[in-house]
């Protein structure tokens, strides 16, 4: 393939502001065909906005976008797609009730004079699948596919539109390592065919493993671009934060208190299954429960949340035997707090203020005769902002306008408000930028030091290892390994989680 003489896509001085906040400031960027770049940066750095501008979802206030040597002005995603640029958003954009084939060919159904037919559709979808060497089950409903497979359908969709540039927003956020590898392998192949790829990612490991170039965005500007091979992580992170990343201190393992949460012989036939899982969490300790997707850790999480999973077994809180929680109320009554993984959907009321969200669970204790004591509520929120270092204008700010990390902190504060004996956290730093991540981890350690028992259920091995006093590994529904603080290692954790050489 002849090297191209001019970049595939170029932006010159692109700026964008929403109201009074300047989200992008004179960003210059260029990418050649066949090149792939990882775009990294803290939340709020402007990465998503940038992605949306070059794919036509948003229009820039100033600056130019030049695609394949022509200045372009995308008024809508339709224009961008026609030009050859496709966006695969983080939440994926598909129609669950329709088949894979219909999703692949959305808005481009094969037709004669406007008439189409299912068999025609499937044939065309299979042809595309073969052409781009991406196998997808064209007849199945999208809702039946795993998240990873849906992602692949989305990519095929973008490719089949003759896209020369694909922009992916957090493509592997919800994938296991194996699935992510598979994805990058595909993207690599496509890169060889001349496709340009821009991927926004929070996962340092992947950036270093799969990308030849990493661009750092900070505060709306592109501040760095370089090859990961030649850039040590610390430097990259420094560009992202504008300061040195503070390493998480070594864990001082305080002496373990009494076990306050005991999971005894949990078994479940619902998928993912559980087979006789037992462990305990003591006062003052952080236990990480780690495993790849489908290992059963999610089931344990749901069981502790009271989400009505059909689990058999026993649970003991502070020595009191309980029935497995039938619903979240039962869990709360047993003084087991739960921080859900999907904060936007399951944990926060985005349209409400910080104040409202923080006091969510304890509103009764803040009320007299059914009327809420406003001052008590406000104080609770103010304390939370201070203790958790939540960056917000005031307690009245809408939670939906906060960054991911700050939202997560609000969620954490709300779940701590009822002062639970045990706090269970499910994916506590998903979708959270590095700076906030470190803060949250530090917070969790502090809580443990103050005597709380914490159970962190996560698929992020870095996280699982970084904060644990004890690290438990699950695989295929069973507990397969346990590491004390001194023995923690990401390599061993992964090995035990996937079963075999990492």
């Amino acid at each position, binding site marked *: 393939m002849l090297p191209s003489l001019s970049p595939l896509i170029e932006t010159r001085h692109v700026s964008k502001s929403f109201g009074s906040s300047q989200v992008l400031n004179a960003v210059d960027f260029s990418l050649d065909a066949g090149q792939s770049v990882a775009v990294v940066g803290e939340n709020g750095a402007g990465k998503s906005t940038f992605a949306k501008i070059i794919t036509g979802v948003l229009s820039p206030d100033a600056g130019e976008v030049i695609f394949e040597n022509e200045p372009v002005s995308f008024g809508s995603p339709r224009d961008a797609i*026609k030009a050859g640029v496709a966006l695969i958003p983080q939440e994926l954009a598909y129609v669950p009730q329709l088949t894979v084939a219909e999703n692949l060919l959305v808005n481009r159904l094969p037709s004669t004079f*406007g008439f189409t037919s299912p068999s025609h559709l499937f044939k065309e979808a299979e042809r595309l699948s073969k052409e781009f060497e991406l196998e997808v089950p064209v007849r199945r409903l999208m809702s039946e596919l795993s998240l990873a497979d849906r992602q692949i359908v989305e990519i095929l969709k973008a490719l089949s539109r003759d896209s020369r540039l694909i922009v992916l927003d957090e493509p592997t956020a919800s994938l296991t390592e194996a699935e992510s590898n598979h994805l990058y392998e595909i993207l690599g192949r496509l890169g060889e065919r001349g496709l340009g790829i821009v991927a926004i990612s929070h996962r340092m490991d992947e950036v270093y493993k799969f990308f030849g170039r990493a661009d750092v965005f900070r505060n709306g500007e592109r501040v760095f671009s370089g090859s990961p091979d030649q850039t040590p992580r610390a430097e990259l992170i420094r560009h992202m934060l504008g300061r040195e990343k503070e390493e998480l201190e070594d864990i001082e393992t305080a002496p373990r208190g009494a076990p306050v949460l005991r999971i005894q012989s949990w078994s479940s036939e619902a998928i993912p299954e559980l087979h006789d899982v037992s462990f305990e969490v003591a006062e003052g300790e952080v236990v990480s429960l780690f495993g790849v997707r489908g290992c059963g850790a999610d089931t344990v999480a749901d069981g502790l949340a009271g989400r009505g999973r059909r689990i058999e077994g026993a649970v003991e809180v502070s020595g009191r035997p309980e029935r497995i929680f039938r619903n979240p109320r039962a869990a709360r009554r047993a003084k087991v707090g739960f921080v859900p993984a999907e904060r936007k959907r399951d944990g926060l009321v985005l349209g409400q203020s910080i104040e409202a969200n923080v006091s969510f669970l304890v509103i009764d204790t803040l009320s007299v005769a059914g009327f809420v004591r406003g001052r008590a509520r406000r104080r609770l929120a103010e304390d939370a902002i201070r203790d958790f270092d939540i960056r917000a204008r005031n307690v009245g700010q809408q939670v939906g306008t906060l960054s991911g990390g700050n939202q997560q902190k609000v969620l954490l504060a709300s779940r701590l408000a009822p002062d639970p004996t045990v706090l269970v956290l499910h994916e506590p730093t998903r979708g959270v930028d590095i700076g906030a991540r470190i803060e949250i981890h530090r917070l969790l350690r502090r809580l443990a030091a103050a005597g709380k028992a914490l159970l962190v259920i996560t698929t992020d091995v870095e996280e699982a290892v970084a904060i644990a006093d004890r690290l438990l590994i699950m695989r295929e529904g069973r507990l397969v390994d346990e590491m004390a603080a001194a023995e923690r290692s990401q390599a061993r954790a992964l090995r035990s989680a996937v079963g075999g050489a990492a």
Partner: protein
Amino acid sequence: MSTATKDAVEPRQEARRRDWRFAAKALASPYSGTTILLAALVVYFAASSSEFLETSNILVILGAAAAIGIVAIGQTFVVVSGGFDLSVSGTAPLAAVVFGKIANDGSGIVPALIVALAVGAAVGLANGLMISRAGFNPLIATLGTASITGGLAFVVSKGLTVIYEDRSTGFLAERSVGEIPNQVWVLLFVACLTFVVLRYTTFGRSLYSLGGNWEASWLAGMRVNLLSTMVYVICGVTAALGGIVIASQLLAADGQLASNYALLSIAAVILGGGSLTGGEGGVVGTVIGVLALGVLTNGMALLHVSSFYQEMATGGVLLLAVGLGRIRQLVNVA
């Protein structure tokens, strides 16, 4: 568990799973609940009343179902695309009144029909623009339109009933082929046309996309505003047609016509597998839903059930059918 017992357990679990899947498939179609209901009602009424299955009665059922059927089919377009249209209760009488007035003036039936249907289209256009361009909530927008068109029907008719002076004005309710009233043929025609459009045209398929995930469709470059407007236009035209059909049966049009058609048509679409969030539903299901409701009304009348209980029964049927649908959903998920 020893491997021996494990093997013994596995086939049993496997068998149980197979049974679930079979049951799930049997209840697979989205309107299976309603079909079962329709069948049950037919069996019950046939057994309880000797007149139920007589040809004349079946024709009465079909004839009565035609108007609401036509309106419900138009509503199907809108519900599939993720919206709903409450203004049909106002558009139907308005079109019926306009049709009557023009036909009475001697301008001819065909021009009258065209104008009346155009009125329906205009109402639909107004709805579509408000909802897609101005971003109005479909509930509020179509509720407002319903009041306006309904009121307009009274204004045009000056509060009086518009009699269709010539018998031929009500041609849609006459019998041209055997004993079957024309409105049944119209219903059949509209149903077939809609079936083809929703299943075999790109326009129809994109409606499912639109209703299933508006955002994804927009990102994929679909002309979401245009599509959204078009479905309301279609619904407006069918509402107009439905109103004219009712008036043709009565040979009179007044503002009170079709006053309960808004909720009734949406109920029929939901019975037919539609979802208020969009992306589901279809003509076959809607027609079955309409028939179920029609059979129920007719059957209860044949059995001389008091009108108060009739209302309760209609509500009960709706809940039952939707409940059956929920069971199907849960079985599928398991």
